[in-house]
Structure formats: C-alpha cells, structure tokens
C-alpha cells in the first residue's frame, strides 16, 4: 500500500517527541524530590520506558487497538499480540478517519502514550516505593488498566468512542486515568514519614524547569501528532496546545500571586503542565478561544487544587491528582462547552450543540475514573501483600537512591567526596595483578606507576 510520506514523517517524528516526554517528566518530577530520592524517581520513569515498551508489543497494543472482541467495545483480541498481522489496517480507522500511515507507525506512536501514562503516576507515590513492587504494579497496570481504557476511548471500535465521548489525545485515557491511579496508590501506601510537618522542598528546580521545557516541546507530538497526519487539524491542535499552555502558565502564577504574594518558577512549570494536560483531550475539537479559556481555567483550578491534599491528609507527593486528574477533568468537560464542528468533532454547549456532548464527556470521565481507581487500588493491594510495595523506615530515611539502587545522585564536593573512603575490589573484579602483557609492552599503560 502507498502511504503518505508527509503524514508518516509527522507521526514518526511525533512518536519520537512523545518518547522524549518521559525523560522530560522524569526530570520534572526529580527536581521536586529531595536529594536522596532523585535517582529513585528517575529510575521509576526510565524503567517504565523499558517495561511498557515490551508489554505494548507483546500484548497491550493488541488489547487496545486490536480487533474488538465480540463487538462490545470492551477489549481487543490477541490477534495482534507480538505485533502479528501488521499488514492489516488498524481496525476502525476507515472512511474519513482512514489512516494514511503504516500501521507500525501507529503502533509506535501509541506506544509512547502507553509509556508515559503509568510514568505520570510516579509523582504521587514519590520517595517511598520499593523498586520491585513498583515494577510489578506497572506491569499489571499496563495490561489491566491502560489497555482497556485506551480501547474504550481511543479505538473507533471502543464503546466510549462510539458513544460519542471525545478525547483527541488522551485527557481521559492518559491524564484522568493516571491521575486517579496516582491518588489510589498514594492512599494505599500512605504518607511519607514526616509529611506534612517536615519540610520537603524541591532539591533542584532547574531540573523541574528543564523537564517542563521538554514536556512542552514533546507535547506537540502528543497532541498535534494525534491528528495522525500533517494537515490543517494538526496545525490547529498545535496552536491550541501552545495557547492553552501559555494561558495556564499565566493562570497559575497569577493565582499564586494573589494567594501567596509571589509568582514562583515551580508555579510557572506546573501551570504549563496543567495547561498541556487540560488541552490534551480538546486540542482537535476547539478553536483558539476555547483553548485560551481551557488554559486559563486549568492554570487557576489546578493551582488551587494543590491545597486539597492537605485538607484530606493525603500525601499525593507531587500533585498528580491536582495536575493530571483535575486538569484532565477540566479539559474533558470543557469540550462539552467549547467543542466546535468547525474544528472537528461535535458542537458543544456554546456552539449550539446542546448538552449531549457534555453528557458524553461526563460519562467518560466518571467511568474511567471509577474503573482506574478500583483496578489500580486492587493491583496495588495485591502487590503490597505479596512482594511489598513500600520501603521500610530505615530505607525511607536513607532515601531511595542508596537503599533501592546503591547509588548517590551527586558527588559535587570539589574537595571531599563522601566516598573518599575505600573502594573494594569485589569478587567480580579481582584487584588487577601485574600489568598484563599488553600493558607491559606499552609503556604508556603504566603512566600511573
């Protein structure tokens, strides 16, 4: 079959951009944790890249975008497991939404969404998960939660899609899904020791800002790439994405200014992400006015939402709930108001479309939130009672970096490495004996003697 090379270039490029978002997210989060947990945070995100990539190829892609099982729109079959039968077009994409790209390009593009979604969760449970337990939770989640939700909402054969719920790039599938899952796990594993009395300020906000920059950049692939073509709709989604992000950045720091008297850098970064989250479901359905309102609303609402956890005593450590759940819901529901068929999709309330669209959006939000919360909690519980999900007190105090990974993030002492102790030759590394023949022949090798 002849594919459109421009569309293929755009989708492959977008897939690369979305892949890059996960390291971006890792740094966005890692900047916010304390020095002793930096690597723990980075590692959780990077291992998700490894783990979910394989799970996607093996089974989740087929469950999410495969041939619908029985036509109920609940789940795909395993026909595409291991990426078999990839010459067959992606089911459901026909007529006006027929794909112009190789199915494998769609596979890798969607894979990146499957990766970053569970990665988002890591913020809520920061600083206290056992590495092994975390890996187990994610592996199960990628199959049991992500795949069905993606099928319902993203696949044209899914029941929420067919119902008419709109989600251009993952407001429900990615952000509400991950946001509520983060809340569920934070409830399950409990607060960090000392929270909220002990101060736990960010250890390196420049890393957070770097992550936010990478996310903003990569999100163009996420949202505009979801047009699956390099066309007018992609351009509109791109514009909306940037506009909402900008508006939310300003909305968040203005809210802060009113509340705390100061606009903060962390607020700017957080606002940008909140805007990106909120415009995600809407970017292909609203015009630039809608995007601006969605952005401003998300910035202000998410900023205020960061206080909620203190009222409930819930240590959602890096505000996954306030940013991704609240931001995702804001965007998903505002489609019901600002959706306009001049851009794409159905008309919302403000464009004469009545309450129908808003209703479908609400159904999708509630269904995904309830499902994700329940299954995530169950998965977490299962892992907790079997291999354990939370580190013990000593490991938590010591920090994840040394306790889970036997590493330290920074060794900046120009003078005094804490490690200026002694290195031990381990069993694997016998202290080198006499110079090897090669060294003996080459005098330079002995430069240190």
């Amino acid at each position, binding site marked *: 079959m002849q594919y459109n090379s421009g569309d293929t270039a755009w989708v492959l490029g977008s897939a690369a951009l979305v892949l890059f978002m996960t390291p971006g997210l890792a740094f966005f989060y890692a900047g916010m944790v304390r020095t002793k947990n930096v690597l723990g945070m980075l590692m959780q995100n990077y291992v998700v890249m490894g783990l979910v990539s394989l799970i996607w190829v093996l089974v989740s892609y087929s469950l999410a975008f495969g041939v619908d099982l029985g036509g109920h729109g609940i789940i795909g079959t395993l026909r595409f497991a291991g990426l078999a039968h990839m010459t067959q077009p992606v089911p459901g994409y026909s007529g006006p939404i027929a794909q112009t790209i190789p199915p494998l390009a769609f596979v890798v593009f969607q894979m990146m969404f499957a990766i970053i979604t569970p990665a988002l969760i890591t913020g809520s449970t920061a600083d206290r998960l056992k590495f092994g337990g975390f890996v187990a939770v994610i592996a199960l989640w990628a199959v049991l939660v992500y795949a069905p939700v993606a099928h319902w909402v993203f696949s044209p054969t899914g029941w929420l899609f067919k119902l008419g719920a709109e989600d251009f790039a993952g407001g429900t599938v990615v952000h509400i899904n991950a946001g509520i899952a983060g809340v569920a796990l934070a409830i399950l594993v409990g607060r960090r020791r000392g929270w909220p009395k*002990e101060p736990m300020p960010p250890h390196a906000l420049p890393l957070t800002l770097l992550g936010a920059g990478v996310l903003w950049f990569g999100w163009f692939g996420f949202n505009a790439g979801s047009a699956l073509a390099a066309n007018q709709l992609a351009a509109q989604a791109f514009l909306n994405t940037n506009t909402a992000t900008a508006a939310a950045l300003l909305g968040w720091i203005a809210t802060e200014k009113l509340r705390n008297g100061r606009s903060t850098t962390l607020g700017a970064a957080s606002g940008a992400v909140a805007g990106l989250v909120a415009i995600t479901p809407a970017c292909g359905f609203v015009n630039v006015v809608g995007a601006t309102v969605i952005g401003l609303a998300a910035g202000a609402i998410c900023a205020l939402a960061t206080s909620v956890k203190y009222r409930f005593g819930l240590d959602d450590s890096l505000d996954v709930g306030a940013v991704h759940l609240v931001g995702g819901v804001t965007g998903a529901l505002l489609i019901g108001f600002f959706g306009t068929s001049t851009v794409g999709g159905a008309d919302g309330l403000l464009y004469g479309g009545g309450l129908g669209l808003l209703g479908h959006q609400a159904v999708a939000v509630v269904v995904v939130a309830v499902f994700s919360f329940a299954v995530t909690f169950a998965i977490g519980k299962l892992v907790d009672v079997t291999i354990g999900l939370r580190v013990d007190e000593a490991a938590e105090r010591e920090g994840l970096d040394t306790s889970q990974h*036997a590493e330290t993030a920074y060794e900046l002492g120009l003078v005094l490495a*804490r*490690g200026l*102790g*002694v290195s*031990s030759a*381990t069993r*694997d*590394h016998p202290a080198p004996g006499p110079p090897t023949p090669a060294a003996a022949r080459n005098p330079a090798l002995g430069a240190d003697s």
Partner: protein
Amino acid sequence: MRLVTAIVKPFKLGEVKDALSEIGVAGLTVSEVQGYGRQRGHTEVYRGAEYTIDFVPKVRIEVLVTDEAAPGVIDALVKAARTGQIGDGKVWSVPVDEVVRVRTGERGPDAL
C-alpha cells in the same frame, strides 16, 4: 565562656534546635560534616564496581554559652540527639577566652 560543639545525626537537627531554644539558647551555628567511627557507611555500585562509603553525613552544631550554662546545654544536646543507635555522635566543650558580637562590639556573656 565555653564553646559547646556537637556532632549529631542530621535528621536530629530540628529536635536539637528546639531543645536548645527551650532552655534559652538564642543562637547557634551549624555546618555539614562527614563522620567516621563505629557506624558503618553503605555500599554503592557503579557498573559492577562496588564502593564502600566509610563516611557518614553528620551535622556539627556549635553553641557559645556561659560557663554556668554549659552543663545544661551539654545535657540538652545529648538528650535531644540520642537515638540509642551507633553513630549518635559526640558533644564536647572547650574554653573560650573572649567573645565579641560583631554588630555592637559587646564582649563576654553580653555578646551571646
């Protein structure tokens, strides 16, 4: 006057500060140090190479006090810093000839 110095576990700093405040100590100076002693450090691994870290992060707290107040301050420090586990640290005091408050030039106990 006396300079009382304590080497304690970092996470005890808050409690120590509060304990000193309670007995009327109005100022102190803190710095980061690395301790070597009975308490063992941990192990790190980089690409298969294992390192033993012999030093353990500690906090040094220095308090200038009058001779009379010294025993009470020492006791408060020891009590607040204790966990009962190896590595709790040391408290010691040395005699001080002279203390001046830079801002006012006050000397002796008034400078504290």
